[in-house]
């Protein structure tokens, strides 16, 4: 295969991988703080995109996106306050079912507000036909935006969790809820904050994606499944691992297209996931002892 073709596949894979990684990070944040797998994560992406599309009709694009992210964060906080907070000590299964129910609720709500039409946000720079040449390969400027925003999200989160008080408090909740409470951390608000953060990240990713993939009310579920797959592949709870796993999976899928018919793309990625889980049940980067300590 000529170099520019390899590069083309590489760029496509990295873009896909960045999308998966962003969704996986959203899963990991909530999982870390609460132990819940939030299956409504995909809906946050779609919600952010839809709100931004509606607002961008009469507001400048950056403001529309900022407001969409804020609105989705509010919805995320609401989801926690209404459905999760008042549960005394719920089992994992109960929480999973609740989040699936929330995802269905959000999806139907979006269907009623925005109906079944497909919408797309304006391209941040350029248009539907703009293309940037890079060493013989072509990439859409919007894909560069997706990569850039994903990188910024990962960097900002790394700094947040390591160097700020609130970030460290959230990590404390993840490590041991009771000990954190004894240290004076308000764990209930940490849970709400984690939902807010996940929703905000999802919304931002959704806005960046919308010009490329178009947004429809029911796009959330397939995206969430892919993101969940990546989160498991990297090791549930480890955000950096999620990034690596996302890139690996994205590249794997795209290069499988070059060799096999496109129809096998999902089969390849799921087969890889199964093989990895058989050999390393904690995920590619997860430690088995740490996994055994977790409930889920």
């Amino acid at each position: 295969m000529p170099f520019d073709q390899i590069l083309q596949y590489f760029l496509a894979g990295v873009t896909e991988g960045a999308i998966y990684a962003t969704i996986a990070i959203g899963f990991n944040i909530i999982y870390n703080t609460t132990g819940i797998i939030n299956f409504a994560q995909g809906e946050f992406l779609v919600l952010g995109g839809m709100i931004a599309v509606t607002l961008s009709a009469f507001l400048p694009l950056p403001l529309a996106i900022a407001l969409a992210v804020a609105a989705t964060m509010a919805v995320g906080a609401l989801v926690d306050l209404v459905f999760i907070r008042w549960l005394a000590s719920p089992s994992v299964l109960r929480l999973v079912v609740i989040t699936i129910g929330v995802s269905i609720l959000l999806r139907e709500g979006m269907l009623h507000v925005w109906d079944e039409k497909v919408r797309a946000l304006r391209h941040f720079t350029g248009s539907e036909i703009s293309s940037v040449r890079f060493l013989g390969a072509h990439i859409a400027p919007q894909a560069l935006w997706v990569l850039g925003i994903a990188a910024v999200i990962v960097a900002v989160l790394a700094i947040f969790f390591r160097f700020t008080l609130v970030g460290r408090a959230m990590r404390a909740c993840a490590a041991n809820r009771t000990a954190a409470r004894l240290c004076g951390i308000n764990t209930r608000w940490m849970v709400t904050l984690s939902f807010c953060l996940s929703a905000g990240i999802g919304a931002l990713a959704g806005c960046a994606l919308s010009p490329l993939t178009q947004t429809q009310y029911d796009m959330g579920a397939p995206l969430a499944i892919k993101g969940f797959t990546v989160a498991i592949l990297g090791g549930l709870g480890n955000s950096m691992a999620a990034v690596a796993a996302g890139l690996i999976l994205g590249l794997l899928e795209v290069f499988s297209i070059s060799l096999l018919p496109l129809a096998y793309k999902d089969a390849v990625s799921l087969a890889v996931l199964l093989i990895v889980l058989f050999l390393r049940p904690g995920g590619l980067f997860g430690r088995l002892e740490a996994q055994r300590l977790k409930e889920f």
Partner: protein
Amino acid sequence: MRTLWTKIVLAFALVLAALPVTAQGGTIKVGAILGVTGPASNLGAPEAKTLEMLVELTNAAGGIGGRKVELVLKDSGANPEKAISFTRQLIEEEQVLAIIGPSTSGETLKIKDICEENQTILLSCASGEAIVNPVAKWVFKTPQNDSMAAIWIYKYLKDKGISRIGVVVSNTGFGNLGKGQLEKYAPEYGMEILIAEVYDKEATDLTGVLTKVKAKDVQAVINWSIEPAQSLVVKNMRQLGMTMPLLQSHGFGNIKYVEAAGQAAEGIVFPCGRLLVADALPASHPQKALLENYKRQYESKFKEDVSTFGGHAYDAFTILAEAIKRAGSTDKDKVRQAIENLRGFAGTAGIFNFSAADHNGLDMSSFEMLTVKNGKFVVLK
């Protein structure tokens, strides 16, 4: 003992109440299974709106033969399993006279046998030739055959001196049938299909498969699908720097696909019914008045552009209404025979000439080659 009797009487009363009362002079029940939500929403939503509009207009004018029409509409979301269960429901519980729809070829092929067994008229709004070939006595369709679209596309490419093509289709009944037709007619028109790939109907990014197509050095790309991914194909192509022409199937006939693709849609060529270019037709054209009338009614009521898909539902309903009038009754056999006897019936898709062997009734002249210019559909000169 008394409570047991009460229960038996209550149960009996409920059963009696649930039995549908088949009144001879009552409403004419017409069922419809359309993909209003889901990947075929650009087809099902205009179809549903058109049917509701037509039923309203018909009833306002006194109904058919003095009897009002009752529309029972089910949203299958382009899901074949749902279509099957709705079909059974419409036939067994609602006891409809005829079913209009479904919107997609995949669903239609799944319910073709059920309607044939239960002797219920089916007027499909899907385009796969396999729906009427082999002919089933009770199954009709109103869109043009996908085989005719493939031939139109090949004739155009041959004129342009193009012979090396790449084909991408979606993994639906429509897409796979289209791929079959393209592969079937390729040798006849000197076309060499260098690559044929099937993508997921819910795909959100096609740069991977289009990179593969680009590597094969094709002169043109043909896309065969009806999902929103149709717009993605052309956007991704231009983003990858692929400047060769893109040909679409007649599943492109909704301006929403052009809007979603934006500037990338310029220059797309596809065969289509004349509804989208009704104003460009000469005044003497037999379809002109009908097309302009439908266009005006639909656009003023729903504040959105007409699409050929709404037209297919329009044809299905008007054909059914005409058949009921000519049969003079709602007896299933008589109505079915009346549909089969229709000749020279002007619809939105073309002039219908049904027969016992031809349950589609349209020929090659029902198509016109269209293109996209400045974000609008125009006739290709």
